[in-house]
């Protein structure tokens, strides 16, 4: 990966959000005690880590191996909480001379979360955009218009400063799980989460290589939410030219290397031998199934498909 070093220190965060104060950060903690070992069950609970104030280089990121994201800096973000983060806000960088997005940051609170369904974003053509399909890609489209700050967090629709060209995998397997975690925490607690998303463009590339996502919950100083991850803008089985977004199928491109997925793992399913559908055991369709057509099966999802069964459209096993 070509050397592109950026300083992800407090300067970026505080340039938008105000001055950080490490002492204030500590004072606002209702901390989980550091490395508390309990006699009852001897579990160890980590304390909220201090935000790192060092520099970071994208050159340190491991090459894509099929995993949608990788932990950076031990999951300790490079941003820290200051007094401005106790009020919701959102900020988006201006597009650069090539039309590319920059750093986006928000203190996500309930008051800026969307109250209506997402509108159309098709009018935005982010840099590197191609409309291209592959049969093996989830949803078929290789590229999505990918929100840097997720719609469910700040309710931004067709904001060109918040949309990049992102692979389906980065969108749904890389970024979305973290957005879900933030959204749930904010909804359930009423607290804020300071979230910064930095797209990583190498040189003059029009397609981002990935995004750095950093988050820390504000009122509890990271006890609830804290992560620092890099999400790869890549798709298993597809070779991508990041200069312009051109792409092609490539059997040598990395495939998922994580532990067995649901599709590969042994699971228990309920079969309907009449409709040739298979379901999760808890699917409501199972309750409506006639006993004579009901059969329990334990094995892989793929083996069922190979046997002529198809997944239920409701429970999506």
């Amino acid at each position, binding site marked *: 990966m070509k050397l592109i070093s950026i300083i992800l220190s407090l300067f970026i965060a505080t340039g938008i959000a105000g001055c950080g104060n490490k002492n204030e950060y500590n004072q606002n903690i209702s901390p989980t005690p550091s490395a508390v070992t309990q006699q009852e069950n001897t579990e160890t*609970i980590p304390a909220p880590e201090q935000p790192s104030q060092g520099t970071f280089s994208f050159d340190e990121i491991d090459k894509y191996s099929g995993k949608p994201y990788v*932990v950076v800096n031990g999951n300790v973000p490079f941003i820290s909480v200051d007094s401005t983060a106790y009020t919701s806000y959102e900020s988006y960088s201006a597009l650069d001379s090539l039309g590319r997005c920059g750093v986006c940051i928000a203190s996500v609170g309930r008051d800026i979360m969307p109250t209506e369904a997402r509108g159309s974003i098709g009018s935005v053509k982010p840099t590197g955009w191609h409309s291209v399909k592959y049969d093996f890609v989830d949803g078929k489209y290789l590229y999505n218009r990918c929100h840097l700050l997720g719609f469910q967090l700040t309710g931004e629709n067709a904001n060109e400063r918040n949309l990049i060209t992102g692979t389906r995998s980065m969108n749904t397997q890389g970024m979305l799980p973290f957005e879900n975690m933030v959204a749930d925490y904010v909804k359930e607690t009423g607290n804020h989460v300071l979230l910064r998303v930095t797209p990583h463009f190498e040189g003059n590339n029009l397609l981002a290589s990935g995004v750095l996502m950093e988050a820390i919950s504000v009122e509890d100083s990271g006890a609830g939410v804290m992560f620092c991850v890099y999400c790869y803008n890549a798709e298993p089985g597809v070779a991508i030219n990041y200069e312009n977004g051109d792409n092609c199928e490539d059997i040598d491109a990395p495939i998922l290397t994580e532990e067995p997925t649901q599709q590969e793992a042994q699971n228990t399913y309920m079969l309907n031998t009449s409709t040739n559908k298979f379901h999760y055991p808890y699917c409501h369709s199972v309750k409506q199934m006639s006993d004579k057509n009901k059969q329990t099966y334990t094995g892989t999802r793929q083996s069922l498909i190979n046997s002529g069964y198809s997944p239920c459209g409701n429970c999506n096993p």
Partner: protein
Amino acid sequence: MKLIVCLDEAKGLAFNNRRQSRDKEVIKKINEITGDCPLYINKYSRDLFANGVVGAGDGFYFAEVDLPEGDPDEIYVFYWNRLYPSDLKFSIDLSLYDIVDTCEFAGSSHEKITLCHYRRKK
């Protein structure tokens, strides 16, 4: 011991020593399930269950950022039906258990949560 866990679509439990999600309706359900029986928890879960007993023993154990050793007699799984990051996965083989009961309900911040009650096969 009866185990209670919350899992995402990838059988994840936690990420970075923190719960993936939470929901007020799940807390209510767990209190209904446990009734007057002791609910054992990890210290991490004290902010959810002020009545929880930190430690382990006969009764229910609510696992968020750890999994107890051994195979529980019964397991209550709350499926979030969403995907979250995870670095701690649920490792118990549920094919060794029968499903006793299932139900679905809306959470306070989750559209649909599925509760499955498993009992170890004899």
